[in-house]
């Protein structure tokens, strides 16, 4: 077991497969990423590279026919891969909260949004109470004074209203609405209010702005930015937009076909990208003031049922070498970089013993 | 000589290649369907049951060991034996032969009802959906009126008013059954009507009748057929129910529901007259339902994934 690399989250060697009619989709092939408390890590990559699967795995929300087949997800001092469902439920929502790509679909259509937020607050209070009680060694409800539940409920409603105002919504107008009565932007604000209502240590944002109008995207991103700055919440941001990641994050993990191919601080990723795929991605991002043509990466994302041998990027790689289709390159620290940049890359061009 | 043949060969090969390329997705689709079919054992069982049912109906006169309507009062109500596995009824008729011959009546019922009800349903549905507006409103309200009756009750009323015979029972059920297909065909017609190519055909001067015949009808027919396979079980049950109530096939016709009704008075001591024809109904309906479920599952995009 290697040394823990991040004191909040350390994902290593994470493998996830989906069993489908056409065959086994090897969606994650040993993902490596880590982060400390309060940091913001962006996971970028093309559609289908496994960003969302990574996010869902951290919450252990992978559903049939998918399953985690290997690796570990250390959250603080516990490996989430090994925890039983009931222990996970005390972490979900409380320590790790999540917001999703399609906010309207992510809200229960037959429940008022206020009630959905209150439910989250109550749920976290209950699990906190049971954790406390189990630490004290007594039953959760043993010495609860009469009428406490009603008082707690009222305070939950108060928290819900504060949170709604906090995300820029008028609670009086919003709390009794149903999800179908919200616009996408409003629904995402509700989701953010819900996720942050329990003061999580880690917020996972799975493409939070992709399904929204461009003008709303910036608003939501700014809102998210100011809220997590206030509370020092760590954020794992899943996005396909390099620009969004650059704006928002401290660190970036670049994913390709189920692997993290490069990881490091914003500075090194943008100024000194090593992996050919990262280089390609950056060339595909438009920059203001520059008029040279955008370049796309030739080729297509590989079929993950029968992925290429060795490095999964080699069929598209302009710097391909003979060893590239033989073995998978190790994920190693890049040479000559400051430790604080945590620059890591998985590419034979930079393997140290060759 | 040789040259031309090889050119023809290569043309053939390229045709085949092109065909495979163009039709590839379709072939994959068919293969996938067959795969799903095999993976759903229940659908396979349904297919086998219906296959057997059709074979029995086809060869009924050869399979039936005795004359289904020949009476022999001296041997009435005899219990099942090796010679008469399903026993004899109150007139000494062989129940097995009656059940086997009855399968022909059931096939006839299903076939005619399907044709009539689909014809009515398609006409009403396509006209309503294609023209829309007032025509649609009127036709759909008429459909609603038919749907306001519990099916069997309306079929019973029709059958009785027409005089209870097998033919009239078939007509009566068709008069109730068409609403299902009318609604489906209407939905499909509305979809097709709003397609841009229909505008184009209209601009060329095609008549409404031609558009409905050659463009709307072919699109509407497949959902209707799928629905039909799922409703066949219900159709048999309805026909058998009419027979049982005395409002369908009349004695001595060996319609299964009517035979069950025959046996009712002798239930206590001579259960076989009731039990076996009822079992035949049950197994056939089960076959159709399993088959219908299988077809639905195979066409369901969520399961196809």
């Amino acid at each position, binding site marked *: 077991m290697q040394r823990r690399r991040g004191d909040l989250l350390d994902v290593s060697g994470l493998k996830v497969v989906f069993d489908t009619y056409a065959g086994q989709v090897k969606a994650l092939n040993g993902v490596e990423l880590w982060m400390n408390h309060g940091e913001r890590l962006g996971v970028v990559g093309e559609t289908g590279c496994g960003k969302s699967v990574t996010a*869902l795995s951290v*919450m252990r929300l992978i*559903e049939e026919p998918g399953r985690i087949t290997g690796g570990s997800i250390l959250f603080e001092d516990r490996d989430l891969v090994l925890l039983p*469902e*009931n222990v996970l*439920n005390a972490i*979900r*929502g*409380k320590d790790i*909260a*999540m917001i*999703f790509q399609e906010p309207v*679909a*992510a809200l*229960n*259509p*037959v429940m008022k949004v206020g009630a959905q937020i209150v*439910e989250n607050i109550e*749920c976290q209070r209950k*699990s906190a109470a049971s954790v406390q009680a189990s630490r004290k060694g007594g039953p959760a409800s043993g010495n609860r004074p009469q009428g406490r539940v009603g008082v707690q409920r009222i305070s939950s409603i108060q928290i819900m209203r504060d949170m709604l105002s906090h995300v820029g919504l008028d609670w009086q107008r919003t709390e009794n609405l*149903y999800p*179908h009565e919200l616009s996408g932007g409003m629904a995402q604000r509700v989701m953010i209010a819900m996720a942050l209502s329990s003061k999580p240590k880690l917020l996972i944002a799975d493409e939070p702005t992709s399904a929204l109008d461009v003008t709303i995207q910036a608003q939501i991103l700014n809102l998210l930015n100011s809220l997590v700055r206030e509370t020092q919440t760590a954020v794992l941001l899943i996005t396909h937009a390099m620009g969004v990641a650059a704006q928002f994050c401290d660190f970036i993990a670049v994913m390709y076909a189920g692997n993290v191919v490069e990881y490091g601080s914003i500075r090194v990723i943008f100024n000194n990208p090593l992996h050919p795929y990262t280089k390609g991605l950056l060339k595909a991002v438009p920059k203001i003031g520059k008029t040279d043509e955008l370049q796309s990466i030739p080729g297509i994302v590989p079929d993950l049922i029968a992925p290429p041998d060795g490095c999964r990027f080699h069929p598209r790689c302009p710097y391909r070498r003979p060893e590239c289709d033989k073995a998978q390159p190790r994920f190693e620290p890049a040479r000559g970089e400051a430790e604080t940049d945590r620059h890591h890359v998985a590419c034979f061009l930079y393997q140290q013993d060759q | 000589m040789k040259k031309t043949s090889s050119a023809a060969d290569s043309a053939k090969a390229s045709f085949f290649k092109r065909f495979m390329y163009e039709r590839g997705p379709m072939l994959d689709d068919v293969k996938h369907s067959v795969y799903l079919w095999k993976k759903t054992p229940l659908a396979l069982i349904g297919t086998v049951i219906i296959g057997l049912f059709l074979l029995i109906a086809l060869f009924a006169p050869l399979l039936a060991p005795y004359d289904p309507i020949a009476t022999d009062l001296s041997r009435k109500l005899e219990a099942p034996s090796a010679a008469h596995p399903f026993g004899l009824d109150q007139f000494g008729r062989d129940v097995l032969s009656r059940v086997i011959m009855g399968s022909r009546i059931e096939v006839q019922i299903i076939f005619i009802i399907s044709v009539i009800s689909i014809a009515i349903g398609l006409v009403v549905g396509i006209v309503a959906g294609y023209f829309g507006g007032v025509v649609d409103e009127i036709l759909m*309200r008429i459909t*609603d*009126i*038919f749907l*306001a009756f*519990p*099916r*069997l*009750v*309306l079929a019973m*009323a*029709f*059958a*009785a008013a027409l*005089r209870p015979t097998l033919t009239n029972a078939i007509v009566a059920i068709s008069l109730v059954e068409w609403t299902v297909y009318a609604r489906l065909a209407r939905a499909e017609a509305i979809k097709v009507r709003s397609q841009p190519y229909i505008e184009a055909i209209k601009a060329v001067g095609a008549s409404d009748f031609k558009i409905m015949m050659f463009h709307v009808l072919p699109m509407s027919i497949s959902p209707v057929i799928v629905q039909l396979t799922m409703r066949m*079980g219900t159709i048999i*049950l309805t026909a058998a*129910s009419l027979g*049982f*109530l*005395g*409002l369908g096939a009349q004695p001595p016709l060996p319609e299964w*529901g009517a035979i*069950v009704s025959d*046996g009712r008075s002798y*239930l*206590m001591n001579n*259960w076989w007259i*009731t039990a076996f024809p*009822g*079992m035949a*109904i*049950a197994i056939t*309906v*089960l076959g159709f*339902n*399993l088959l219908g479920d299988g077809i639905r599952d195979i066409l369901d995009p*969520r399961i196809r994934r």
Partner: protein
Amino acid sequence: MELGSFIIKRLSLMVLVIFGVLIIVFVVTRIIPADPVGAILGGNAPPETVDAMRHQLGLDKPIFAQLLDYLGGIFRGNLGNSLVSSRPVMTDIMEFLPATIELAISSIIFAVVLGIVLGLLSAVFRNRFIDHFSRVFSILGISLPGFWLGLILILIFYYRLGWLPSGGQYDMFLFPTRTTGFILLDAAIHGEWDVFFNGIKHLILPTFILGYSSTASIARIMRASMLDVLHQNYIRTARAKGLPRKVVILRHALKNALIPVITIIGLEFGGLLSGAVLTETIFSWPGLGRYIVNSLLTLDYPAISGGTIFIALIYSVVNLAVDILYAAVDPRMRS
């Protein structure tokens, strides 16, 4: 749109449909039959008798006048006199209706409760024993002919085992006091508990036979709907909140999964009324279904028309109620 205006719209549609129902029943009972009088009197009646009968029934008037008479009668609550019992059809129906309502209510409760529970368990424990059991139970439910299964159960539970009665609403030697016409209700009001429990015993087999196919349909729809809902994004959100599985299923999935089931319950009620005709025949249940069968077999046209109209009316009212319930449950329907 508010629930109120939805109800008004739906109600006016129903009035239109009921009018259509009356027309169809008129056509079925007055126009299709080639020779209703001959059917009543038999083929060899003297012509004077036939004419007198035609006049008595109003069949010598033009069709349109007959239609007006018929509609006028119905709006005055007069469905004519039964040709068999010579009593007003309305009186007959009121006598037979409570038994049908009692049976239908007990069957629909049985079907809804068992169907939803089976479908829910089936979806939640997919591919486990309870799922296989429930699926076999359901496919048999929609495949076995109720009239046959009823007879087989009578054979087993009455003739062979003697556990349950073969038919009727209560044993012949009992003389319950009648107030409302509903046997169980009357027995409970008057404290006749022997009648009450006897009535329950008589209700068991008919309820099962009448409710079985609806149970099966509801279980199948519930299973499919639940499986669909369990894959929705909001279920993932609920799980991400850290809610226990039980809460996710009961609080978040169940209500959403029930929405399509509610529509089916309305449609199933039609099947239930159809089934009542058969069930009442098999179990000698003194209800509207058996009344209609008897009048059809004796070609008692006023009774046929009255009974059919009543059945259609009940069905329409139930469907109206279901639609309103649907709008009340699903907030998306209201806008």
